[in-house]
């Protein structure tokens, strides 16, 4: 790597769930102050900041957070990149550090979603009596329910069924078993939205949201925030031995969008940009899927987890079903996936997710994950995807 290495010095996530007594600024501030304390630094040490909040509509969330955690006059970048918003905030400060603009950076993502219901399409108003073409995207009528769907459950249901159709050997029960795993995993995560183990029967017999995903197979809308403090290698070397020991190396930080293709103009392709991000990340980090000790991937739906086993090259192409059936992705398997409970059980406060998954990996690499520690974990991968689309992959390594 041309530029110097970047390290996660401090990281924190709030409890995910319902926080009726806290707003986005409260939650984000709790995450920021927690991350600063975890790293043993203060806002006085931070030279650059990035903040993300997708659904709150608050302009300048970063500046609002600064008023609660410390205003030092540093630049703040307010970023938005769908479900990859948190990871984009982190990558923004990593880029600033690599560019030599600062030696300590702070990234935070926050969302309040408890009780939000379907995020797209489901709450669409009925069609008006008259329809007028307008603007760049108003030239054609809404597609939802006519030539496809814009609802997230519908889109990801199709993505899973497309994989099942292409490779075979995949059925409703297999997808339900993925959710069974993630809900079982979250029973060990005190910060997860849900810590309830569901039986396979309970999952399969729950409300069908969009076949083949029932309710517990969909990501949990919840409130939460996560923040990370990152430092340059030169800065790290000036810190105490204890701080250096707890630092986690960012071996790769990759962000991709859709490359042009003669593809479907309705159903998004979540595969190509994820595969591209993974390939770049492995190359940059100099590690391969076989070197990973754990993975936190974007299981916004059970169907998504299956296709991302393949996209992240955790298995042979087309082999995701066999890979899952082997038990590999359970916490006692050969490559544990979503030991936090994932989006389905830990929860998915959108802009926080892309830092919260890195929080999970860091805790294992530091040996601080307590009851759910993956023993001896040295290398982990965190993945998020936001439709539109943006995909972020981070590879993290324990300090030697």
């Amino acid at each position, binding site marked *: 790597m041309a530029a110097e290495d970047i390290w996660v010095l401090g990281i924190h996530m709030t409890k995910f769930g319902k926080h009726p007594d806290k707003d986005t600024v409260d939650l984000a501030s709790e995450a920021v102050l927690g991350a600063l304390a975890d790293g043993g630094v203060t806002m006085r040490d931070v030279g650059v900041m990035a903040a993300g909040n997708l659904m709150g509509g608050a302009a300048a969330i970063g500046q609002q957070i600064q008023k609660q955690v410390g205003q030092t006059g540093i630049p703040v970048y307010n970023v938005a990149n769908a479900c990859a918003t948190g990871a984009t905030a982190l990558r923004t400060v990593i880029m600033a550090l690599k560019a030599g603009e600062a030696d300590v950076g702070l990234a935070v993502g926050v969302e309040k979603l408890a009780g939000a219901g379907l995020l797209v399409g489901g709450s669409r108003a009925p*069609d008006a009596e008259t*329809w007028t073409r307008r603007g760049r995207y108003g*030239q*054609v*009528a809404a597609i939802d329910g*006519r*030539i496809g769907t814009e609802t997230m459950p519908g889109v990801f249901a199709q993505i899973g069924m497309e994989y099942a159709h292409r490779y075979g050997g995949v059925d409703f029960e297999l997808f339900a078993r993925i959710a069974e795993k993630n809900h079982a995993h979250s029973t060990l995560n005190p910060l997860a939205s849900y810590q309830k183990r569901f039986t396979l029967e309970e999952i399969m017999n729950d409300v069908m949201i969009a076949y083949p995903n029932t309710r517990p197979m969909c990501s949990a809308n919840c409130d939460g925030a996560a923040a990370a403090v990152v430092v340059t290698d030169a800065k790290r070397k000036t810190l105490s031995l204890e701080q250096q020991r707890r630092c986690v190396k960012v071996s790769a930080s990759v962000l991709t969008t859709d490359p042009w293709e003669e593809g479907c*103009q309705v159903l998004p392709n979540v595969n190509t940009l994820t595969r591209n991000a993974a390939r770049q990340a492995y190359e940059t980090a100099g590690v391969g899927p076989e070197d990973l000790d754990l993975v936190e991937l974007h299981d916004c739906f059970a169907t998504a987890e299956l296709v991302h086993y393949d996209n992240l090259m955790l298995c042979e192409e087309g082999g995701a079903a066999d890979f899952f059936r082997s038990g590999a992705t359970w916490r006692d398997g050969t490559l544990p996936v979503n030991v936090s409970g994932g989006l389905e059980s830990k929860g998915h406060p959108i802009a926080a997710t892309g830092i919260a998954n890195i929080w999970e990996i860091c805790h294992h690499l530091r040996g601080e994950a307590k009851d759910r520690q993956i023993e001896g974990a040295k290398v982990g991968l965190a993945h998020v995807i936001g439709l539109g689309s943006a995909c972020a992959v981070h590879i993290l390594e324990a300090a030697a």
Partner: protein
Amino acid sequence: MSSTLPTPAPAISPETEEFWAATARGKLLLRRCDDCQTIIWYPRPFCPACGSLKTSWTEASGRGSVYTFTVVHRSGIPGYRDALPYVVAYVELAEGPRVLTNIVDCEPDQVRVGMPVRVVFHDTGEGNALFRFRPDEDA
């Protein structure tokens, strides 16, 4: 039956002005990259495959086949509501690109994936026409 589909006039941008003007003459134009020869859909002044800014117009054969389709039975869109049921389809042009369109001049239940189709133009009354496709008996 789909012959009653409305024909609202398109919004015209500088990049699509010639395209829409040609529809009035019964011609379907495609943009082609002069460097890598990729046929570009929808009309844009650059090549999405190689990034080249050297592109020019070429006339399409007007032939293609149904790549996929759906039959719309419920629609809240004014105008289209009266044309139910109608077919929305992707047609793969003989030149390569897939275009979103309607299949007309046949019963919706006659449409099949792979079915040969050819372009027809429906006059908007405003100096241009909408391109749609009908079964191609000659193919």
